[in-house]
């Protein structure tokens, strides 16, 4: 018994030094030398200023104002999507796309709350992709993308909350619909925007693991470089 206690006491300390200090330090050392960009989060800079991480989805919205004052709801600034930018997927974090406090939506498959959330996301997505206000039945006189008719063409990833709340990617179908809007708002030829979309579409792992996704930050920054628009 006594011998076991001594061994356990010494053992837990030396194993802590080995597994908890030495191992992470060695991995950090090698990573910082071999892959410094990745190890520090693939930071993206514009004119020397940090604007994000390639791996982290952001909220490409602008602060909402009412009577000249910023709108704040329960301590969180309310934002509206900026139509010039491709928008990331819905996020359950507070505020949206908060990469310092990630969370799932945890909405169940048969919950009324889930239906309401999805319906709200569909409306917001449709409204964003219509140049005018939607009519009462949720339709639009002239969609940016003529193929959009009703919810039928809303891709699931545009209406369902992502897992991390900071999903950097959107589906190709989602990006294609938004491309019409971005092209119109930025006065760019649609083909140019579509070309950028396919340029920033990633593949599957080893060709079969996962799904292709369009990296929203990279795509938006490429557009900014092209048109010189930078808020």
């Amino acid at each position, binding site marked *: 018994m006594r011998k076991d206690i001594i061994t356990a006491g010494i053992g837990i300390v030396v194993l802590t030094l080995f597994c908890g200090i030495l191992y992470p330090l060695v991995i950090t050392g090698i990573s910082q030398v071999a892959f410094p960009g990745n190890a520090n989060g693939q930071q993206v800079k514009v004119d020397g200023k940090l604007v994000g991480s390639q*791996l982290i989805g952001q909220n490409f919205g602008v602060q909402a104002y009412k009577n000249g004052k910023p709108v704040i709801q329960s301590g969180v600034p309310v934002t509206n999507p900026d139509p010039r930018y491709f928008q990331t997927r819905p996020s359950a974090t507070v505020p949206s796309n908060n990469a310092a406090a990630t969370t799932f939506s945890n909405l169940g498959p048969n*919950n*009324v709350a889930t239906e309401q959330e999805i319906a709200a996301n569909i409306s917001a997505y449709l409204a964003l992709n219509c140049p005018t206000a939607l009519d009462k039945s949720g339709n639009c006189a002239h969609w940016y993308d003529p193929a959009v008719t009703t919810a039928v063409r809303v891709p699931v990833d545009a209406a369902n909350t*992502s897992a991390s709340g900071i999903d950097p990617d959107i589906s190709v179908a989602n990006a294609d619909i938004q491309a019409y809007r971005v092209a119109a708002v930025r006065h760019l030829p649609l083909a140019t925007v579509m070309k950028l979309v396919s340029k920033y579409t990633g593949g599957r792992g080893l060709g079969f*693991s*996962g799904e292709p996704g369009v990296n929203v930050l990279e795509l938006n920054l490429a557009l900014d470089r092209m048109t010189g628009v930078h808020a």
Partner: protein
Amino acid sequence: MTFLGWLLIFGFAAILTALAMPLGRYMAAVYSGERTFLDPLFLTPERLFYKVMRVDRDGAPPPGQDWKAYAKSLLIFSLAGWLLLYFILRTQTLWNFTGLNPEHFHSAPWNVTFNTTSSFMTNTNWQYYSGETTMSYFSQMAGLTVQNFLSAGVGIAVAVALIRGIIGRSGRSIGNFWHDLIRTVLWVLTPISFVVALVLVFQGSIQNFSHYLNFNGPTGLANSIAMGPVASQEAIKELGTNGGGFFNTNSAHPFENPTGFTNLVEMLTVLIIPAALVFMYGRMAGNRRQGYAIYATMMVMFLGGACVAYIAEAHGTPAQHAAGLHTQVLAGSTGGNMEGKEQRFGIAGSALFDVVTTVTSCGAVNSAIESFTGIGGAVPMANLSASEVIFGGVGTGLYSILLYVLLAVFIGGLMVGRTPEYLGKKIEAREIKLVAIGLLITPLAALFSTALATASHAGRQSISAAAAGSPQGFSETFYAYLSQANNNGSAFAGYGGFVQPNAGNLGSHGITFANLLGGFTMLFARYAPILFALAVAGTLAGKRVSPAGLGTMRTDNPTFVVLLIGVIVLVGALTFFPALLLGPIVQGLTGHLY
């Protein structure tokens, strides 16, 4: 569903098998004391550990222990680990001098820390806290990462001890706990973690000690991104089937699991040791077919679950359909239930990960299990109901299924009217009593705690607002205690035990009921079965081996595989079916919204 989705599921099974067989051969050599190619690297550190821990005998490896001595060393070591981890977590600000708490987080309250400590020590990694708003880098490294290694090491040690009991030819020794632990950490966990961590960084995981990033995005909005030594912890989190995420959204977070390729790597890392242990067992037992039979049993049940989950998730949920969202596959869109799933993993990559993580005791998630369809959510619960025998946790899986094997041998023996034997050793009343009690502890703990939490006002506090008063609320509760009793750690994450208004724990409080009940459930359901498994090892070790005769029931052929699956399903189904019906199956069978 797509062809590539199915290819992922079956391709994964093939790659896993191809990798696990050589690893099993290697591990058999490690625990039998044969030469391995890593000996030159680790023999000196091994001797050093023994010397510092005072267990060597003048440089020779430590002596064999009988099962009681083995169990005593294991329990005392676990207690020491518990105390140190609780101390580190509760004194988080004390370690600020290391510079590894750049956000100056305070400690979580005592009840949450009790739950967290018990959770990481028992290989559960149930998390009521979220990593990036609670833990300093020091706590994550020196506290949680250490137990990721050691709880895995303890599990494998027990499995190796049970194997020695089953195959032992000489007396009472079932090996030496310290020897098995140190060998596991050095020869198995460290080298694989090392490689996997670097692969993850190469693919985009982060590994730094920086402040969180604060900046304004392209549209001028303020943003903040959490940093940290992620890859090193991610690797052992998967390899040790621990599952406790560095970040709150676990392997869904792009820094933990950046690409479709890392998703595949992480799934393989989770299952590689549990799968290899089965092949190792066949080799150590001197009859590789025994290992193949168990492997086949596990693989059949694993693939069954994966297929059901994939089909269910590809179908979509009643909430999606009610909202008018169309869930079929379109050009450029996955379709299906994408609520709580990441684009880069898609439906198949999320469903498969979910099954991988719940058949083992891992519990890492790359998607929100709570948002799975009814049937998609029933699959992980059914996996948990099987008490970690479909591959199972590192070590736990093998020792649990060996108990089931003994039970199946006993039942088979009764059916054909012969004295049950396993590998030449008679299975008698004493062993069967130990096996039966050992196998009933986990279901007992899970159901008792679920009942208590469902029936009490204090327990219902933890249910999320959106799920209250619906089958989802019961599912959350049931999943919470099923997961903690099986030392899994995945969650219907709406179930809460920690109220944290701000990052850094100031002004936060834990829900004492949920934290204590969960903590005790994990401790009881971890250590009681370990004691029974070691006791079985002890009684078997002393038995004489009689040669197999004509009447001996074969345990390495398809008939036995079917029998074994039957026993597992029957015990799991009979115990848990009523509870499964009340939650996920009700939801899966109806389009009704609650």
